[in-house]
Structures are given as C-alpha cells and as structure tokens.
C-alpha cells in the first residue's frame, strides 16, 4: 500500500475544513461587532436627539460619524450612507413624543421617549 503523500493529502483536507470554520467564525464575529456598534450608535443618537432640541441632520451625523458636527471629509462608520439612517420624531409635539433612529439595512430600530411633554 502506498502511503507516501497521504499525510499531505490529509493535511490539505483538514486545513480546508478548518480554514472554512475559522474564517466563518471571524465573519460572524465581524458581522455581530458591526451590528452591535451600529445599534449602540443608533441608541446614543436617539438619546441625544431626545435630550437636545430636535435636529435630524445632527442625529444622523451622530450615527454616521460619532459627532453631531463632523469635520469635512469625515469617514462614516462601516461605510454607512446617510440615506441608510432614518431619523424621525413621531408623535411630536404631544404626550407620545419620541425620537426614532432606524438603520433598516441592518435591522436596527431605536426609539427614545422625549421627556417634558
């Protein structure tokens, strides 16, 4: 029985399977990280919007750049486009006034009630 080269073949097989597994784990981890970071940004932006006077572009900037007043040429987080961030203040003015920040492409929805109505 010929055995020369068998270990090479086995190594290749195992390496292919394990590489797929490891790369898959890295991919899922990366996806979860971006999702979590975006959810946190949406929540922070909604909170900011509820505390300060309503300013949709500033809220959108908080999600995209992490600041309400980004410098020129600032790079958006995760290559997010401004049109991907949906900002609104449904129920305002009124008792049910709230600030809503959504990133539909990532399945993120955050709502913060506005106090003082």
């Amino acid at each position, binding site marked *: 029985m010929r055995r020369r080269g068998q270990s090479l073949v086995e190594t290749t097989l195992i390496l292919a399977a394990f590489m797929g597994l490891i790369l898959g784990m890295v991919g899922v981890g990366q996806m979860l990280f971006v999702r979590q970071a975006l959810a946190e940004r949406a929540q922070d932006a909604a909170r900011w919007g509820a505390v300060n006077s309503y300013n949709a572009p500033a809220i959108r900037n908080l999600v995209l750049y992490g600041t309400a007043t980004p410098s020129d040429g600032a790079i958006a987080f995760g290559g997010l486009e401004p049109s991907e961030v949906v900002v609104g203040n449904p*129920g305002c003015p009124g*008792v*049910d006034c709230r600030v*809503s920040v959504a990133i539909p492409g990532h399945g993120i*929805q955050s*709502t913060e*009630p506005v*106090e*003082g109505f």
Partner: protein
Amino acid sequence: MIVRTSRTGSALIEFAAALILLSGMFTGIFQVGYTFFTYTTLVNAVRAGARYASLQAGNSNVAEPQFSKSVVNMVVYGEPRPAVDAKPVVRGLVPGNVELFLGPTSATVSVRGFEIDAIFTKVALAGRPTVTFPFTGGGAK
C-alpha cells in the same frame, strides 16, 4: 497467536471520535454564546419598555389600553407604535410574552413564558429578565 496488523479502520475510528468531541464542543459554544447574546438583547428590550412606562406614567393616559400596548410594543419591537411588518427584537418574542405591572409609584416589566431557541436546545427563562423603574413624572406635569 493472531497478530492484527490491519490499520485501515483506525483512521475512521479516530475521525469519528474526534468528530463527536469537536461537534459537541462547537455546539456547546454556540448554545452558550447565542443564549447569552439573546438574553442581553432581552434585558435591553425590557429596560427600554420599563423606561418608556416610567416616563409616560406621568401622563393621564395610563389607564388606557393603548398605554400598556405601547409599553409591550416598546419591548417586543423597540417602538411604541411599530409598523405592521415590524420584526421582534428577539426571534420568537410575541407581545403575549411581556407582562406589565403598574404599581402606585413604579412600573415593572417582565418577560414571561419565553424560551430562547438556541436551535440545539431551548433555554427557559424563569420570569427573567424583570426591570422595575420608579415613575419619573416626566409626563404632563
């Protein structure tokens, strides 16, 4: 005396043993990770609902059925008046799983009868997460 020299089956047996161990390990890692992730999401959702209830309780509309509906929607969909096609924050979570209790000075929101579906197993949550927030009187005052 019989001496067995055949080695052709040993690789298969080793592979089977390793597969059982490894698949068990990966399944366990997935279950714990997914359950923890989902539980954290639930805690955040329940907290958002309780906070909404504690702020809105200052308004006169507490007794209205829409109030408790809004609180429950806040937990399940992250929005008091969700779109018709809104997805729950956690797969399988329905408004019936959320319980709202309004005390004289506080609001308590709990998830009841919900099981985290981690594909290979289901994790039952015994009345958790539960969050109680005092009324902040942030409503019409």
